[in-house]
């Protein structure tokens, strides 16, 4: 019974045992806890010590501080703009175009499979 739970997963050219990794994660968590224990505990709440430091600039309101979804990966999408233009053109929301893709795929597969 215990064997079935402890067996590692054969993947053809390797193996995978999640329990070993689980053990590693627990050890890592312990290490993190120990390292955290070295931190100073004698800071005072409500003073300058717990405030965010923004290079001396004043802190914005909570709404503006939050990094919103549209701001993330801006550089990535900007760099791959040509790819995204094509992809956005594919998903244009037009039912006829969606059906056209289906018909195109049927035609292409006819040619590929019919030729052999």
């Amino acid at each position, binding site marked *: 019974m215990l064997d079935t739970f402890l067996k590692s997963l054969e993947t053809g050219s390797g193996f995978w045992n999640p329990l070993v990794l689980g053990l590693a994660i627990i050890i890592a968590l312990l290490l993190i806890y120990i390292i955290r224990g070295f931190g100073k505990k004698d800071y005072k709440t409500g003073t300058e010590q717990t405030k965010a430091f923004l290079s001396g600039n004043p802190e914005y309101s909570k709404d503006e501080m939050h990094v919103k979804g549209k701001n993330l990966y801006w550089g990535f999408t900007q760099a791959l703009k040509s790819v995204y233009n094509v992809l956005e053109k594919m998903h*244009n*929301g*037009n*039912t*006829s175009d969606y*059906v*056209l893709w289906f*018909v195109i795929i049927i035609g292409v597969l006819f040619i590929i499979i019919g030729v052999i």
Partner: protein
Amino acid sequence: MIYNIPFIAVVAMIFIGLFAVLFKRNLVKIVIGISIIESGVNLFLITLGYREGGVAPIFTSAPSEVVKNAPGSMVLPVPQALTLTSIVIGVAVLALMLSLIMHIYEHYGTLDVRKIRGPEE
């Protein structure tokens, strides 16, 4: 040759229906196109079961010489059953699509397929 004409009609109906779905802008016309494709497929199924000079596939009412001498001379019943089922399903799909179109017209105020799309998000 004469027995190939129904198959030509089938292909023609499917292509006419696809043309309507792909290039017409009115939603109702798109639905009509789907209906035409469906009729083409149904015609195909019916044509499959046809036998030259065959009788209706009612076993108990067939002329006795047909049953005794040439049991294969009945029209195939299975494609007819398939066609009936497909017609029933077609009615359901048609009703659903038309009622959706009614709601769409209420909300969008148009039946142009290019203008009916959700927000880009």
